């Protein structure tokens, strides 16, 4: 997902790796990591808001890109030859991502892609397509993201 983010974001924003952050910002981001699934839905609680505020104290231009993936391995498709009853697989893969401004604590951009009927693997075509679609409309023009 990180590679997809790099490709999708391209030159629209500069991405800073966690390893290259100064120690204070790195610590805040590691704490934010525990809230990643919530943040990737663009949903902030008090803890997240406080952490983002402390990140903005380090640099007002910071924005946090949170990503999550949820894979559900459900039952496969079925067919009952006696009744004619059929069913589709209940497996699914959900990709969610959100870019949140540290300064305002508001969601700058968010996106999600659901792959139905499949617990997608990283090498699957459907995963590649979904990741590309996830960042298709990424745009931070005129907004305070770094």
């Amino acid at each position, binding site marked *: 997902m990180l590679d997809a983010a790099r490709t999708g974001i391209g030159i629209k924003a500069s991405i800073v790796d966690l390893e290259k952050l100064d120690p204070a910002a790195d610590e805040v981001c590691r704490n934010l990591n525990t809230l990643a699934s919530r943040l990737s839905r663009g949903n902030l609680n008090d803890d997240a808001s406080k952490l983002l505020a402390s990140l903005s104290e380090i640099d007002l231009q910071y924005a946090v890109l949170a990503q999550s993936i949820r894979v559900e391995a459900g039952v496969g498709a079925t067919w009952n030859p006696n009744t004619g*009853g*059929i069913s589709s697989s209940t497996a699914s893969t959900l990709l969610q991502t959100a870019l949140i401004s540290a300064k305002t604590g508001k969601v700058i951009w968010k996106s999600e892609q659901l792959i139905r009927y499949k617990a997608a693997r990283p090498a699957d075509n459907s995963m590649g397509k979904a990741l590309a679609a996830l960042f298709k409309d990424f745009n931070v023009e005129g907004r305070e993201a770094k």
Partner: protein
Amino acid sequence: MKLSMKLGLLVGMLSIGLVNCAAKKIPKAPPDPKFTSIQKISVLPILDARPGSKAKVNLRSLQSSVVNTLKRKHYPVGAEEATSSGGQIDVDDLESADPGVVKKLGPDADRWVMIVMLNDVHSKITFGSTGNAEMSGYLFDKADGSLVWKGKGTGTAGQGGLLGMTMKGMMNSAALESAVAALLSTMPNLPKSR
């Protein structure tokens, strides 16, 4: 002589089978006191947690379906109009039974609150038509902020052939009904009179 021996053997085997069946019958365990002590479950409006584009679903009717299923399990139950007295509810808050969030769920006077999320519902045409629905639910005791029960239910519906293709419009509702039943299947049935 042979016939009577065979008959005798058959009767003997049948009686052994019946004795085994009787011996295997396990007496029903009484429901957990945390369920029997419930005086009224307030079912909050269904939370629409579906990602992506959303098919039209009657969430009020879905809430009624949850209420009716709980009634059939002999729970005193009522439907509420409002979900929370403030703030956005996230699935992480429900999973971790965040006391700050649990306290705000439903009306202040209600003690047992159930919140049900619609995670997905979808139908498609294939060699017929199919429908899938997924729901999750949480029951909290606001007195101590504890999570009494949580469950997840997946419902599927489908019919093959040309006839099945014409039934696509019915698949979402059939899958949702099935998902509600699956979701609440882990809530124990209470005795009729308590």
